[in-house]
C-alpha cells in the first residue's frame, strides 16, 4: 500500500535534508553537547575558572531530597495539565462540532486564550486568586473557604495547573475540532440508524477515529507541561510554597539564573534530556501502537 519515492544517488536527498540537519546541529546537538560537558564542572559565574568534579554535580543533585521530590511534582503537574486541558478541549470540541448556527463566533472565542502568553496568563490568574485582594478568593471567603495558595501547597499546585491548562485548551480544541470534522458523517449516520446512542457512537467510532489527533496532542501537551509552563510558575508561585510547585525546568532556571550555579543547572538539563528522550521512546513504542491511522 505504502508509496515509496526513491531517489537515485545520495547527493540530492542529502542536500534536501541538510537544512534540517544543520538546524538540529546548531540548535540542539551543540547546546546539548555543551550542557553535558558543563555538567562535569563547577564553574564560577563569570567563566573565569572551572573546577572539574566528574559526576559530583549529579551526586549533589540526587542527594538533595527536594530534587528527588521535584520528579514527582513534575509528573503530577504534567499529568494534571495534560488531562485537564485535553479533557476540557475534547468536551468543547464535541459540543462545537454539533453546533450549526454561530459556530464561527463560538470557535473564535474558544481559541482566544491561546494568544495569551503563559506569563501573562499567570498574572491574570494570580490577580483572581490573590490571597488578599483576589476576586475569586473573596467569593470563596463568602462560602467559608479560606484560599491561601501562598502557604498551601495543594492549592498552589491547583492554581498553576489551571493557569497552565487554560491557554492550552484552545490549542487542543483546534486540533480536536479539526479531527472531529474529518470523521465522515456517513459512518456516524450509519451507526445512528443502527440505533447507537450518542455516547456509544462516541466511544466506539468517534474516539478511535480521533486517536491520531489524541496521540499527537498527548505528546505535544506533555512536552508543553514539561518545558513551556515556566512563565506561569514563575509569575504565580516561583516554585513555592516549600517547593511544592518546583518542576524540573523551574529548578534549572532558579539554580542557573538565580543561584548562578551553572554546573548544577547543566547537570539538571542533562537529566531532563534523558527523561524527555525516554518519554518519547515510551510514547512511540507503546502508545502509538494503539493508534489507528
Amino acid at each position, binding site marked *: 500500500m505504502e508509496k515509496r519515492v526513491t531517489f537515485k544517488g545520495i547527493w540530492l536527498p542529502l542536500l534536501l535534508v541538510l537544512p534540517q540537519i544543520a538546524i538540529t546541529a546548531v540548535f540542539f546537538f551543540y547546546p546539548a553537547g555543551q550542557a553535558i560537558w558543563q555538567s562535569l564542572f563547577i*564553574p564560577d559565574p563569570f567563566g573565569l575558572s572551572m*573546577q572539574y568534579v566528574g559526576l559530583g554535580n549529579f551526586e549533589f543533585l540526587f542527594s538533595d531530597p527536594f530534587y528527588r521530590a521535584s520528579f514527582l511534582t513534575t509528573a503530577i503537574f504534567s499529568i494534571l495539565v495534560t488531562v485537564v486541558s485535553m479533557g476540557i478541549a475534547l468536551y468543547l470540541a464535541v459540543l462545537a462540532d454539533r453546533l450549526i448556527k454561530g459556530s464561527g463566533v463560538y470557535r473564535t472565542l474558544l481559541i482566544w486564550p491561546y494568544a495569551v502568553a503563559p506569563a501573562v496568563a499567570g498574572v491574570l490568574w494570580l490577580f483572581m486568586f490573590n490571597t*488578599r485582594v483576589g476576586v475569586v478568593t473573596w467569593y470563596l471567603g463568602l462560602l467559608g473557604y479560606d484560599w491561601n495558595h501562598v502557604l498551601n501547597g495543594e492549592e498552589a499546585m491547583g492554581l498553576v495547573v489551571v493557569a497552565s491548562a487554560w491557554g492550552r485548551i484552545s490549542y487542543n480544541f483546534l486540533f480536536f475540532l479539526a479531527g472531529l470534522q474529518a470523521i465522515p458523517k456517513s459512518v456516524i449516520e450509519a451507526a445512528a440508524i443502527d440505533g447507537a446512542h450518542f455516547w456509544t457512537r462516541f466511544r466506539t467510532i468517534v474516539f478511535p477515529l480521533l486517536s491520531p489527533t489524541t496521540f499527537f496532542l498527548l505528546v505535544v501537551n506533555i512536552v508543553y507541561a514539561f518545558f513551556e509552563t515556566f512563565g506561569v510558575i514563575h509569575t504565580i508561585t516561583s516554585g513555592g510554597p516549600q517547593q511544592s510547585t518546583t518542576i524540573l525546568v523551574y529548578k534549572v532556571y*532558579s539554580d542557573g539564573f538565580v543561584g548562578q550555579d551553572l554546573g548544577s543547572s547543566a547537570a539538571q538539563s542533562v537529566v531532563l534530556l534523558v527523561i524527555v528522550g525516554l518519554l518519547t521512546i515510551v510514547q512511540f513504542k507503546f502508545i502509538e501502537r494503539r493508534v489507528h491511522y
Partner: protein
Amino acid sequence: MTYKQLMLASAIPLTIAGPLAAQTEIEFWHAFTGRLGELVAEQVDTFNASQSDYTVTATHKGNYSETLNAGIAAFRAGEQPDILMVFEVGTATMMAASGAIKPVYEVMADSGATFDQDAYIGSVKGYYTSSDGNMLSLPFNSSTPVLWVNRDALSEAGIDPDVDLSTWEQVGEVLTQLKDAGSSCPMTTAWQSWIHLENFSAYHDTPFATQANGFSGVDTELALNGPAQVAHISAMGEWAQDGKFIYAGRRNEGGANFRGGECALFTESSAGYAGIKAEAEFDFEVRPLPYWSAVADEPQNTIIGGASLWVMEGQTDEEYKGVAAFLNFLSSPEIQAKWHQDTGYLPITSAAADLTREQGFYDENPGTDVAVIQMTAKAPTDNSKGLRLGSFDQIRGIIDEELEAVWAGDKSAQEALDSAAERGNGLLRRFEQANR
C-alpha cells in the same frame, strides 16, 4: 540603497557630530523602572549636563536578578558595561570575581579623583568593603527595615496609638489586644528573611553565619539556627497560628494590605515610604524595628538592603576616569540628599544626612530619620556589618520555604531553621568550591 551605501549614509551624521564623538561614553546598567527609573535618568542627565568630557548612558536591564545575569553574560561575551548595579545578595558573587570587577577604591585612586572613604556612613558602606576597610563598590540605594504603624487601627482597637512598641514583648501584647478587638490583620511583613532573620541577627548582635557573616572567608556556615533566632521565629509562628501575624508572600505583597488599611503593624523597608505616603488614607507612623529585651538590653544596628554599583574590569583608562567622576557626582551631598528625600533610601554619606536635616526635611516628614538613626546609633560589630554569602539569593529562597513551613504550622521553628542551615550550607560549600 545597498548595504554599503546605507552604512556610508549613517556614518555622515557621525562625522558632522565630530566634537560630540570625542566624549567618552560610560555605560551604566541598572534595575530600576517607574518612579525610581525616572529619578536615575534625572541623575544621569544632570551629570551629563554638568560636564562635557563624558556621557553616561543608563540602560534598564530588568529586575535585580536579570540585571546581574545580563552583566555576567555580557562579561562572558566581552561586552560588559562600565558600571553594573548589583543587589546586596549578589555582593559575594561579585567580590569573588576578582578578574571581572575593578574595586571602586582602585578606580578612584587610579583616576586621581578625590575620594574620602570616611565620608561614607559606616554601616552603609560596611556591606561593600573588604576586610581591610576598602570600598569595593559604591552603595547606591540602601534601605533598612523599620516598623510601620497604622495609628488609626490602634485607636479603633482601643489602644493608645503612642503605645511603646520598641520591644517584641510589647508588640506581642498589642497584637493580642488587636486580635481580641477583631482585627483581621494585626501584623504582616515584607521580605521575611531579610527582616526577621538577617536583620534580626544583626540587631541582636548575634551571628547569622560564621566567619563574621562571611566577611572573613568563603568557608562560612550558617548560624541562623541559634537560640535567639529560634525564639523569634517560634513566637512569630505562634502569632501566625493565632491569626495575629498574617503572611502575605515572600516579597512585599503585604504592603498592599498595610496601605489599604487592613493591617495595623507592618515590618518593611524604610524605602516603602514613598508608596505608603502616596496611598495610605490613615494616620501612619514609622517606628524603629522592635527587639527582644530578653535577648539584648538594647539593640545593635540594623543592616541594609538594596544595591550597589560595581565597576567592571576591561575598560580603558579614559572610561575609568569618567566612571570615577560619575561616582563622585553621585556621592555629592546635594545629589544624595535629593535621592534620600525622593525615595526613602538612606543617604550614603553623613554630609547628605546633615544637609537633609538642615533643609528641614526630617521636621516636615517626621519619622523619615528613624532608619538613619537606627543604622548609625552604634558602630557596627562583626555581626552587624552585613552579610557576605555566596548563592545568597538561593539561600534566601530556602529560608523562605522553611519559614513558610513554620507559618503553616508544618514545622517547629527549630526544625525549620536547622533544615534551612543544613540546606544553605550545601550551597555555601558549592560556592566555596567554585571560587577556590
